[in-house]
């Protein structure tokens, strides 16, 4: 499979996964509608990976999950701080705008539900078991959160990044769902879906 076809295929997976994740989020938030931006799938050289997220000093909430099972990888849900605070207010009714324990656990649960929905969608398509770990939550500089995720994934010379951005209608909520699959495991997914060997 050429890398273009591979990336198109990953974008399609991302679209489906994120569609399910935002549907789950919408249900948690009483039916608010979300718009997905066309997913971005790239094979980034390590040297460009650091700047991929942008705004390294900007504060974000990051939820990180290790995926194991038939296909391994890493999933991250990154939300700008302001959006995270809007989500916390909608979920808990807490308007204090500080990141207390309640806010943290609300974000953790939110990330958990979204990432699990994403993985369930992939699981259904492929028949593979995709098991998420307990989510880790960090609120910090985007650069610090992102590089900790890349280090957790032990990224070598190239990293496949699949990212979908979404926005809410009427509320200023935006976020990114990122999937960093283990490279060898692509071939498994492709084979199951009847695509040629990569």
């Amino acid at each position, binding site marked *: 499979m050429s890398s273009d076809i591979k990336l198109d295929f990953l974008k399609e997976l991302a679209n489906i996964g994120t569609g399910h994740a935002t549907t789950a989020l919408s249900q948690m938030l009483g039916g608010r509608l979300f718009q997905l931006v066309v997913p971005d799938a790239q094979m980034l050289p*390590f040297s460009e990976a650091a700047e991929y997220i942008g705004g390294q000093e900007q504060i974000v909430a990051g939820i990180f999950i290790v995926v194991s099972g038939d296909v391994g990888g890493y999933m991250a849900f990154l939300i700008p701080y302001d959006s995270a605070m809007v989500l916390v207010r909608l979920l808990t009714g807490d308007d204090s705008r500080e990141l207390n324990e309640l806010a943290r656990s609300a974000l953790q649960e939110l990330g958990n539900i979204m990432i699990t929905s994403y993985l369930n969608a992939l699981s259904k398509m492929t028949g593979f078991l995709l098991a998420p770990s307990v989510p880790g939550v960090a609120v910090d500089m985007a650069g*610090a959160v992102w590089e*900790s995720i890349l280090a957790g994934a032990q990224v070598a010379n190239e990293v496949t990044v699949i990212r979908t951005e979404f926005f809410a209608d009427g509320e200023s909520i935006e976020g990114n769902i990122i999937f960093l699959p283990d490279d060898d495991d692509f071939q498994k997914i492709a084979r199951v879906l009847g695509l040629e060997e990569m």
Partner: protein
Amino acid sequence: MKEVFVNMGEISAFKQEGILTTVGLGSCIGVTLYDAVEKVGVMGHIFLPKSRPKDEDALPGKYADTGIPAMIEEALKLGAKKSRLKAKMAGGANLFPNLNTNSTSIGQQNIEAVAENLSKHGIAVVGKDVAGGHGRKMRFFVDTGVVTVTAIGKEAVEI
């Protein structure tokens, strides 16, 4: 004064003056080497503790075991004397502590690997702000040798 941003795996240096900065250190380590006589300063941004065969073309600065020697070489090239080099380090945090319950975090592994490789070369660590659960920004003012570290919502602190 010129300011250069040092990304993951990179090594940069100045002589006389200039600012070396790394933003968003999580589990990575920002390391500085300084020769105060020659005013030679080098900064590295170490990603993981040990180089791996499957990543043989990596920038030397990506791993502690290859990065520290590469930083020393860079300092010597600019006229520093190895016996005068002093190191400072920041980072090595564990932002997702609940994911590392059974093993040493990558941040902690990085701290140990950097310290060990510096000590192998007889270089003393004269300042550090490492570990914990938060990200950091590190700035190195080569004209004075001052290194500051900033965490979100906090003032910069000299180390």
